[in-house]
């Protein structure tokens, strides 16, 4: 019977589309769980500056560049050990060494980068190395950015925070110092970045024979990766990928748990009848006035935000839902059928009748309902996350939307941040709904011709 149903199901284009979407989500989930193990995902997602320090903040996905004529810069990251970075180390006198490093990079973009940062790492015993940072534009203009001693072993120079630079270059009051570093004409009304080969020269002076100097140059772009980054510089791709197995597992488990338990309870109620049935009916009525979302919020605030605890509570609150009434109506019909009486006559036990004679009859109605129910639980999880009650450790789609809203993504025009997780939620919802509706038509022939 199932094979026939499947064959018939595939005649519906919407079922096929739904199945493809679900297949895609499953493949993504498997890929994610294999390539980024659970612990790694949590480490990355909860990581701070040490993991994401060299990634731009609030960067759009890199593929944006394919759709605009104005190319946005990618991040350029160079360290003093990299090939192509010139180093020049020489002793000048008994207690003076020079260590010059020249970074050369090509800049062919139409927009200004977000930030230029030079990190200096020095080792010394008493007197810290001294470094001058010189910026060389493609047209040969030289700008002295900073002179600093590498006190404490590490210094970071960030151009965007260098207010003196703005004054030195006579920039308009509210212009970013980066305009001064990249613009063809920094005073222009609408400055454009100069394309070509830039150089950053670090002129280091060391005062001890064992003293060393290492450095790193990061020109932060405004696009990153395939998914972009958030306000904490994290790659959204990780959360989008990991959100897939989480959403699927959550939706599937919740729908399965709810449907199966509802079915069993209504079967038991109908079979035993009397006070059991009445009790189940009354519980269903009470359950109808229980405010589910506020109760979930209460549990999230007072006890736990763990996704799996929420899953349990959601199942517990949805068992006695509207499904009980529909199932009950069907079971009442089933119960009065002669084959049940026959089973009773040969001495079948109550449980045997419930599990082998009643439950199988309702499966065709249950399967479409189950599939259609999955998205509502996926969205419920997202709703909780958007209310700030998402799982504390796991990255989920809802949590991305919540972060985006909290950080004003809608007001700042950072639409990718909201639209990416939303699109995935939407695809999931539509995929399962399309499959569920087609299943409904296959299993309920009354709907078929309509």
């Amino acid at each position, binding site marked *: 019977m199932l094979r026939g149903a499947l064959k018939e199901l595939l005649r519906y284009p*919407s079922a096929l589309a*739904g199945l493809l979407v679900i297949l895609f989500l499953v493949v993504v989930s498997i890929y994610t769980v294999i390539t980024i193990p659970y612990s790694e995902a949590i480490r990355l997602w909860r990581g701070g500056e040490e993991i994401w320090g060299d990634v731009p903040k609030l960067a759009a996905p890199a593929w944006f560049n394919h759709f605009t004529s104005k190319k946005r810069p990618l991040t350029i990251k160079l360290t003093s050990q990299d090939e192509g970075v010139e180093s020049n180390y020489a002793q000048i006198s008994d207690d003076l060494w020079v260590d010059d490093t020249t970074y050369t990079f090509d800049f062919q973009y139409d927009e200004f980068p977000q930030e230029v940062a030079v990190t200096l790492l020095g080792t010394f015993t008493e007197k810290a190395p001294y470094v001058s940072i010189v910026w060389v534009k493609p047209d040969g203009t030289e700008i002295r950015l900073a002179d600093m001693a590498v006190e404490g072993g590490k210094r970071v120079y960030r151009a965007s925070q260098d207010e003196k630079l703005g004054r030195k270059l006579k920039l308009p009051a509210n212009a970013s110092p980066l305009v001064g570093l990249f613009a063809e004409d920094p005073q222009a009304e609408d400055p454009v970045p100069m394309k070509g080969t830039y150089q950053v020269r670090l002129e280091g002076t060391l005062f001890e024979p064992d003293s060393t100097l290492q450095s790193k140059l990061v020109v932060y772009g405004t696009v990153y990766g395939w998914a972009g980054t958030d306000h904490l510089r994290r790659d959204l791709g990780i959360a989008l990928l990991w959100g897939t197995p989480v959403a699927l597992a959550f939706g599937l488990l919740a729908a399965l748990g709810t449907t199966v338990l509802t079915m069993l309870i209504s079967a038991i109620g109908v079979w035993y009848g009397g006070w059991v049935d009445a009790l189940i009916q009354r519980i269903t*009525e*009470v359950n*109808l*006035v*229980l*405010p*589910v*979302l*506020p*109760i979930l*919020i*209460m*549990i*999230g*605030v*007072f*006890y736990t935000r763990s996704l799996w605890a929420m899953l349990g509570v959601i199942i517990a609150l949805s068992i006695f839902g*509207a499904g009980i009434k529909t199932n009950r109506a069907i079971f009442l019909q089933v119960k009065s059928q002669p084959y049940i009486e026959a089973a009773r006559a040969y001495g079948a036990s109550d449980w045997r009748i419930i599990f082998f004679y009643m439950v199988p009859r309702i499966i065709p109605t249950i399967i479409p309902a189950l599939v*259609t129910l999955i*998205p*509502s639980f996926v*969205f419920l999880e*997202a*709703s909780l996350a*958007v*209310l*700030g*009650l998402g799982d504390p450790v796991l990255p989920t789609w809802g949590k991305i*939307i919540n972060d985006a*809203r909290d950080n004003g993504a*809608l*007001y700042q*025009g950072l*639409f990718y941040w*909201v*639209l990416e997780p*939303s699109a995935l*939620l*939407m695809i999931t*919802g*539509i995929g*399962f*709904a*399309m499959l569920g*509706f087609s299943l409904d038509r296959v299993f309920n022939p*009354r*709907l078929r011709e*309509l």
Partner: protein
Amino acid sequence: MAEHESSSSTVQTQKRARPQSTWERLLRYTVVRLVTLFITVVIGVYLTILIANMGGYVDEIRRSQIREQIAIRLQNDPAFRALPPEERQKRIDAEVAVEEKRLGLDKPFLVRSFNYLKHALTLDLGRSENMTSDSGSRQVRLILLERLPATLVLFGTSQIVLFALTLYIALYLSRHYGSWLDRLFVALSPLSSAPGWFYGIFLIIVFAAWLKILPFGGMVSVPPPENPIRYALDVAYHMILPMMAMTLSSIFISVYSWRTFFLIFSSEDYVEMAKAKGVHPRAIERRYILRPTLPTIITSFALGVIGVWMGAPIFETIFNWPGLGRVLFQAVQLFDTPVIVGATVIFAYLLALTVFLLDIIYAIVDPRVSVGGGQRA
């Protein structure tokens, strides 16, 4: 309409010795439903209290409130202020102990839980920890009731509009079965798997952030217009996006299921008979299709309304709508326990009220409903 009333009352006279008038039937039904629903609400609120108090939170709220009240009262007493600090502390502790005993906080939990139930049912919801109402009160009841109209305006209006719109489109599609519009609605029905707030985000992006023709959220402009008519228009202007979001998320599936339902009904024998008799199509629709399906439609509508109610906290948060749901969200962020518990209780009441109202409407439209909880003849 009249024909139906009479035909159904003949059914009842056959069953009952004494014929019942619609109003009598309705009154008895209302009273019975009210009592059952009240019991249901009591159980629902009691469950809410049990959940809230599992970690002793309600107790903590009560204790800290008592301590605060006593401290404030004693601060105003000059004799108390003259006491040395340890003495003052002792005095407060003693008074708190007396007050806790008076309120029964020293009693076992079972007894106390019924006390809380009484407070919750009489809407004696205590005082908030941080939040204040717009008039500056810290009474949880005031904070919540002040926001209630905003929620009712938004959800009431949109549900009524949605109901009428859905019914109209569904009837239209059942007449034009198989047309491109019909197929469009069927094809778009999976869109309804996403909740309203989700479409809200899209609509805000398109109409507020991108096109800049509608507000991001809120209920009135700042500052609110003084003229009442302009105020109402301003509220209506702010309601466009939330209503669109609600409509988008539910209209396709409801139209689809209702139109299917109408189609099934229009192939009934008596409808065919009426068609053969030459009854006007509109009259067939009204009398033979709409009338008998109305109870089912109202049930599905009721479930829809309840579903929307449940989503109010997040929906209002997305649209910054100053309603009950948003208060709940703010309370969550400020960790204001009394407000969270109070809002949950009010939501339970609202749900019960919705169920009650729809039960009554159900009883009015379905003459077969008799006392005893929706039994059908």
